[in-house]
């Protein structure tokens, strides 16, 4: 077997009836639970449960539902610890604990989130999920608090404020816990926020370390242990030197996506967002460390390596997407790697210990860059499509949300395939007739997005990481903005903006089951086993987020450039869905079964 990950995984199936492990690292190997949104530190979103499988998925039905009560984009993954499911809604970020088999409500926690935080969040008021460790549930609020709750009672244990919404900072990402530290990153790059990743003591909320994405080495936690693979990343205070004077102070590089952890190398690995808020002609230079993947010591936060994917980003290509920690054959030898499905449209395979980019293949239509120069890891830019003031430029692919945005992929060690929910959009840069004028309302009215070649706007694709090719793909009318998961039952699961919950055969993409849900999906599916021995699949519906805000009636679809240009791409969405907030839980009919 080529994937060492898979060898380890299957020896654990036998312990399903054993007592629940209490160490987080062990808990994530117990597939009765789903202890973090990414399922495990490697961010595989793969479960060994197979009671629901390709042979019987057509019999799925809704077991129970629950409303989280706020019709904004629901991007969160529920988590399951023991027989309890925890779920957090979009603003105002209420947290619910439910019996994972029956849906009975155990407790509810309602934070008092500052209503004005809604006005400063860039792209709907989403929340991407919670974390768990040692009897505590952790989550972030839109108004910049990290909160710890007693998992049994819902009692607040601590809450710390990490930023000021009045300065444009919000927090939307799902925290993760590594060795007793809660890792949290901020949002708001376009608002002049300086990006950071912060580690909090899980018992007190006290800041253990903070690593900025821009600024001096001492702030970025770059020191003697930092050994980037590429020469251009070596130098003093590059987080200042690669910007015109002072620009870094509001340089962006927020950390609003996913964090992985390699226990063997003791590295946390994550990507930073795009540079902001300056016009690109006012920030000549590479703008380090924006749009960069960092590997940091989990205990101290010290940078160990980094690789910048989009130097001097021109297209809003954040690189906050998930990083899957897998073992892949590289030049005939198995290597621990990072797989990063880039927002810029390249499937990066990066050495996990050194940051060397082994390959970067286009995984969808891409016109703004010709390829990635593996000697430097820098993209080869298509100069003809560089946005220039005073020039209308058509056919830039992917559009600003990238080939794939935050919505995470899943990897099955059985099929060796990566399942990719993503958009298929291009854009035109139009010279704005109206620049922004102080004292008037603002929309980023400079781009116009539309479906890419073939006319479809989204896709659910299976990518072979060894052969480096797309194996199959399902075209969707709208961008696929939900996450996905895969299981040992050979199913992959996702949801569409036009309200379809879908289960497909992970070997060929054949549709096995679909359900027309109350609202469109921007959430993340998970699976677990209830105390009744039944396997369940859970996902939040509730359209929203960047593409979906148009459908929860907040953006006028007649305004093609609304929602930063996305309204043009999904103007027909309000015709098929409106807002929602329903947690849907599916199972097979009949009593519990311990079928493998």
């Amino acid at each position, binding site marked *: 077997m080529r994937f060492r990950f898979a060898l380890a995984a299957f020896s654990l199936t036998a312990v399903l009836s054993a007592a629940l492990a209490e160490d987080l690292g062990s808990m994530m190997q117990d597939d009765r639970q789903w202890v973090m949104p990414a399922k495990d530190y490697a961010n595989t979103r793969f479960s060994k449960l197979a009671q629901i499988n390709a042979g019987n998925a057509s019999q799925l039905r809704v077991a129970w539902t629950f409303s989280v009560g706020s019709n904004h984009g629901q991007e969160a993954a529920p988590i399951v610890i023991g027989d309890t499911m925890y779920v957090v809604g979009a603003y105002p970020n209420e947290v619910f604990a439910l019996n994972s088999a029956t849906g009975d409500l155990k407790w509810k926690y309602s934070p008092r989130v500052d209503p004005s935080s809604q*006005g400063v969040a860039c792209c709907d008021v989403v929340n991407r999920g919670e974390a768990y460790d040692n009897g505590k549930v952790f989550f972030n609020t839109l108004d910049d608090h990290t909160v710890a709750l007693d998992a049994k009672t819902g009692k607040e244990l601590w809450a710390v404020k990490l930023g000021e919404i009045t300065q444009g900072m919000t927090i939307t990402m799902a925290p993760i816990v590594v060795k007793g530290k809660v890792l949290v990153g901020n949002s708001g790059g376009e608002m002049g926020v300086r990006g950071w990743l912060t580690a909090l003591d899980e018992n007190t909320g006290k800041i253990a370390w903070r690593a900025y994405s821009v600024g001096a080495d001492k702030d970025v936690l770059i020191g003697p242990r930092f050994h980037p693979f590429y020469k251009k990343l070596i130098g003093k205070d590059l987080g200042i030197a690669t910007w015109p004077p002072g620009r870094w102070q509001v340089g962006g590089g927020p950390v609003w996506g996913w964090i992985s952890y390699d226990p063997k190398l003791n590295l946390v690995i994550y990507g930073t967002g795009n540079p902001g808020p300056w016009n690109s002609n006012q920030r000549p230079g590479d703008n380090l460390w924006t749009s960069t993947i960092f590997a940091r010591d989990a205990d101290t936060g010290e940078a160990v390596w980094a690789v910048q994917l989009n130097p001097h980003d021109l297209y809003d290509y954040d690189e906050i997407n998930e990083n899957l920690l897998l073992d892949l054959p590289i030049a005939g030898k198995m290597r621990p790697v990072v797989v990063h499905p880039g927002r810029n449209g390249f499937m990066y395979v990066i050495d996990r210990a050194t940051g060397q980019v082994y390959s970067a293949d286009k995984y969808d239509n891409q016109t703004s860059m010709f390829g990635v120069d593996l000697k430097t890891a820098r993209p080869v830019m298509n100069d003809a499509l560089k946005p220039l003031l005073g020039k209308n430029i058509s056919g830039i692919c992917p559009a600003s949300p990238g080939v794939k945005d935050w919505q995470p992929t899943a990897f099955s060690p059985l099929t060796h395939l990566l399942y990719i929910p993503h958009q298929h959009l291009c854009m035109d840069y139009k010279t704005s007739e109206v620049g922004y004028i102080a004292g008037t309302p603002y929309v980023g009215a400079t781009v116009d997005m539309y479906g890419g070649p073939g006319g479809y706007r989204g896709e659910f694709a299976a990518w072979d990481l060894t052969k480096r090719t797309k194996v199959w793909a399902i075209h969707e009318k709208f961008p696929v903005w939900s996450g996905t998961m895969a299981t040992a039952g050979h199913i992959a699961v996702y949801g569409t903006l036009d309200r379809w919950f879908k289960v497909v055969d992970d070997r060929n993409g054949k549709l096995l089951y679909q359900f027309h849900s109350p609202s469109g999906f921007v959430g993340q599916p998970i699976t677990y086993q209830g105390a009744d021995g039944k396997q369940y699949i859970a996902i939040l519906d509730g359209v929203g987020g960047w593409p979906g805000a148009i459908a929860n009636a907040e*953006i006028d679809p007649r*305004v093609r450039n609304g929602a930063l240009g996305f309204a043009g791409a999904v103007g027909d969405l309000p015709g098929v869905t409106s807002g929602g907030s329903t947690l849907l839980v599916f199972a097979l009919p009949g009593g519990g079964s311990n079928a493998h």
Partner: protein
Amino acid sequence: MRISLAALALLAAPIAAHGATLRVCSDPNNLPFSNRAGQGFENKIAELVARDLGMTLTYTWAAQHETFVKRTLNKHACDVVMGVPEGYDEVDQTRPYYASTYVFVARRGRARVASLTDPRLHTLKIGVHLIGNDPAPPEAALGQEGIVDNVSGFMIYGDYAKPNPPARLIEAVEHRQVDVAAVWGPLGGYFAKVSPVPLTVTPITGTHGFAPLSFRFAIAMGVRKGDVALRTKLDGVIARERSTIRNILAGYGVPLVDLKGGADD
């Protein structure tokens, strides 16, 4: 004029869209345009409109950030936004009721720059406003000229916990942090007028080479898409009250330029 301060309560109130109430969405912290105390020129013009139409003025207050229109006008929390630039297509617009220009603001006695092509701009410390990832015109034009290292940016949204966040740029001129600010006229004109430090306000010229970047904009009122009835009423007020509006704007130091097309004066 009665001004309701309990704005959020109005969100739920079943007020007829065009009854006896003029419902305005406005920023509570953004002079010279508006504030919760009703001290901005948009507040004064809203009062004028309500008086002219015999309506009662009420406000819904919301920071005029990126999602302003969708959170307010599009959710029927109000029916009018007092200032939108001509061509802004998220709303339907009245005819423009004034036009202004970007200006340079400097301390009196400093070299007075007017033209964007003035070579001194390569060495003076310049302050500009920043917004999202989209350039405001002066930032873009200076970048195009390669004027980068001596330019400082001030977030237009700034720290909303402080009064009138965009005013930090003018304060930077007062405090000698920058030599000259390139700023939208109403802001520059008003804060220069109330500044404890004598300031000069000079309309920006020499902009032709930077087309299609524009430095002069006409400003209209905005109503919800399709609200023709209200737009027609407002157009009537703008025509009738032209000189009063002009006087209000002049009182706030707003640099006025001729309206481009469409206007009848």
